[in-house]
């Protein structure tokens, strides 16, 4: 469904953020992308959406090569890729509803969006999504009045209203407390399952990743050096990704967390 072929990104500064990354994400699969800071996780996600233009290689979504699209084609394909950001990236001075509806910008004309006269079907869907993430009563609040977890829920609703085929998620829990982090991860994974969405989730918290996803990809210095199930993440593998450290505790905790259930 989503296929990266020899994706390479070299920044103007000469930093090679990605080198020859090959990755295939089948429909409905949620992948956790782990790796140390600066390994190229954010760059990878941004290259798929072309917020960053890759230097070479291709990213193919359902047969369309995104790297070779013109401006109009790119806008059309971006609609099919919902992004969820670190620090939420809501437009803080817009209302919750406007933030959610901004996910429809790729579908409506300028005048309609300028006058905030979105089609009724979009408005209905926005309310449905807000209800799904538990923020229906907040629709007309300004985004900067919300707490971190609430903002990220709005971010999720904004990505889903695009009716995407794939979710690109960049450190969704980086600025959230442990409990909210789990709730957000659970929500993202549930929604992916409900809608048959594929997702790539960049995440620092290895433990959290192992709790929720079926597949983990490890990135180090712009290369994929691990690709497997959470169970295959041994201390040796983590050492090769992050460097020497005592990893036993990180991995052991998984069982406890699973049993603990709803947080």
């Amino acid at each position, binding site marked *: 469904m989503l296929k990266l072929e020899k994706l390479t990104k070299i920044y103007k500064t000469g930093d090679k953020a990605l080198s020859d990354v090959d990755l295939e994400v089948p429909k409905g699969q949620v992948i956790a992308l782990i790796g140390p800071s600066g390994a190229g996780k954010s760059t990878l996600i941004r290259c798929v959406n072309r917020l960053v233009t890759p230097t070479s290689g291709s990213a193919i979504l359902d047969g369309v090569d995104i790297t070779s699209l013109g401006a109009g084609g790119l806008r059309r394909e971006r609609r099919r890729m919902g992004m969820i950001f670190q620090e939420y*990236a809501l437009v803080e001075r817009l209302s919750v509803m406007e933030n959610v509806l901004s996910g429809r910008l790729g579908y409506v004309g300028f005048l309609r969006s300028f006058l905030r006269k979105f089609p009724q079907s979009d408005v209905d869907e926005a309310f449905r999504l807000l209800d799904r993430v538990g923020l229906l009563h907040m629709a007309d609040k300004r985004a900067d009045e919300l707490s971190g977890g609430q903002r990220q829920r709005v971010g999720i609703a904004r990505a889903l209203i695009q009716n995407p085929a794939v979710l690109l998620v960049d450190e969704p829990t980086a600025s959230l407390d442990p409990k909210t982090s789990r709730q957000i991860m659970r929500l993202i994974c549930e929604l992916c399952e409900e809608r048959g969405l594929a997702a790539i989730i960049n995440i620092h918290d290895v433990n959290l990743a192992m709790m929720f996803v079926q597949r983990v990809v490890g990135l180090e210095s712009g290369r994929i050096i691990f690709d497997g199930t959470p169970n295959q993440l041994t201390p040796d593998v983590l050492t090769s990704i992050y460097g020497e450290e005592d990893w036993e505790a990180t991995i052991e905790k998984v069982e406890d967390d699973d049993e603990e259930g709803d947080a």
Partner: protein
Amino acid sequence: MSVAIEDYVGKRWRKPHFISNPILRWSLIIITIIYLILAIGSLEVRWERVYLGLERGWRFIVGFSQPDFTSRWSDIYEGMVESVIITVTSTIVGIAISIPVALGAASNIAPLPVYLVCRTIISVSRALNEIIVAILLVAIFGFGPLAGFLTLSFATIGFLAKLLAEDIEDMNKSQAEAVRSTGASWLQWVNFGVQPQVMPRLIGLSIYRLDINFRESAVLGLVGAGGIGATLNTAFDRYEFDTVAAILIMIIATVMVLEFLSGFIRAKVQ
């Protein structure tokens, strides 16, 4: 050779000098003192003229104590109305033009050629003082408020576009990026991703500029560009200091009202 804590304990600590080189520091201080002595020495103060000026100043103050609103009221009224019209129209037109210029002059969203063109427009507008532009435009369009209107519209562009462009350059990139990632067109991106972030600044600057334009309109009248300044000039020429006082009081009152209004509105839009 490592730094040992024993070398530091018990020693006095002083803030390092702003200029660490003592020769440079002391020569700068001495040069400044010599310059000040020479500069003050070169002023030729003729005390008999100061005395005459004090007398004239006193007449002015006496005139001020009895402002005369009535005898030239229709002139004052017309001048004020003209000034307000010049102010409002030039501010609106100026803002309308400076918004696209500001978008073009923000290096983070405009391509380089557009950026250079818009920065040039801003530089030209800022380089030319209002009075000079007004003299030029009075020469072209003749005496009257049209020249004042055009001058202030022109000046507003340089002021507002520059400050707004800087605010756009300082905006939060990730918010704008998030809007772009939805597949929004450029205009939609500006409307949803950029505009909400710079709106408080735009409103604040616009009101501030309205204030400036009103004060400028009083000055521009002196060179024939219409408004209350023209009335003020006439009153000065006739040595009618009581009328001058009335006009100045009205200008001060208007500026104070605008000041109060701008504070109120800016607090509201945060």
